[in-house]
């Protein structure tokens, strides 16, 4: 299991929010570090819990929420 600070592609892990960006559950109802699988990009908006539009390219990735915009890189 990777740490919260080693997301490849130079992407910072999302800031703490109301929802877990790895599993989409409410913050506090899961162990964010444990539900993240190695080498998975964030998949849920930490603000609203919606699934993110994730674009994975050979040397990077972007993730954005339809409501709250892109996750900060």
């Amino acid at each position, binding site marked *: 299991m990777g740490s919260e600070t080693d*997301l*490849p*592609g130079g992407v910072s892990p999302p800031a703490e929010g109301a929802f877990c960006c790895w*599993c*989409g559950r409410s913050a506090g109802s899961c162990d964010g570090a444990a539900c993240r*699988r*190695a*080498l*998975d*990009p964030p*998949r*849920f908006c930490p603000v609203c819990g919606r*699934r*993110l*539009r*994730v*674009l*994975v*390219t*050979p*040397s*990077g*990735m972007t993730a954005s929420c339809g409501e709250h915009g892109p996750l900060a890189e």
Partner: protein
Amino acid sequence: MSRTLIAEAGEQLLDRREQLTLDQLAALAEVPDTSIPSLTALAHEVRLAWCGPEVEVEGILSAKTGGCPEDCHFCSQSSRFETPVLATPFLDADEVLRAAEETARLGASEFCIVLAVRGPDERTMRRILELVPLVRDRVGINVAVSAGILTDDQARRFAEGGVHRYNHNLETARSYFPQIVTTHSFEERFETCRLVREHGMELCCGVLLGMGETPAQRIELIGQLREVEPAEVPVNFLNPRPGTPLGDRPLVEPLEALRWIALFRLGLPSVILRYAGGREVTLRELQALGLTSGINALIVGNYLTTLGRSPEADLQMLEDLRMPIGALSKVL
């Protein structure tokens, strides 16, 4: 016993340049763990003798993600399973071009445009056929496509449209396929593979190990790959995806992964054998050993919906192993 088996296989593949039988491969699949270094050493020697020292580097891009109507039980892009992957429409040409340029900057000679579809509809065909010459001419890289099951006419149009290589995986043995996919048959995949070659494209036909198949079924799969005569065989290891029917399966153990990389090389001595998805989580610190066990190509950087290790780490690994990057074609 193992030493004799491996020595006989070496004589056959290196001195007489004859393929091993499936029975020979089945026997080699049973050598004890202590013999795996000898098995992988032979596979490396066979790779060098049949293919040379070059390693082919490729980048891939999911140009249309998720929403696939098929039920491949390993796949997070199937619309039949509740997975975290949000379906997104076909990327625009600029996004595809940028990804191709990224790929070329990493030293890759091949860029594969991948779509999560059963097969291309007419609109998708036209978009791909616009993209292929655009990417090839602007970026100067070979373009491969993976867009599912093809008709005869679609295969012809892709070949005429400049698709260098078409990816269509068998994934697993015919006898195990119905446990993994129910929405289309192994025979449909086999037929698309045949059409790809018939129309003159290079066939890239991969496998996914670790879905619960037996060693005998892996050997069966090598036999079926021989029948479709691929130029390239990507070797994927299952990285279990949340929400899919295989989401809780264990990873292939690292030493077993090396054993099967070696066996695929010994069974398919002339193919481009590519490191593909799942290698990071499966092999962890042993990734360099795959390249001395028969692998002679890799997908660099990220995958379709998951991240890979950094391209710099892979390129450093090749430099450390003194393996030059090059474009490969099947050695007949």
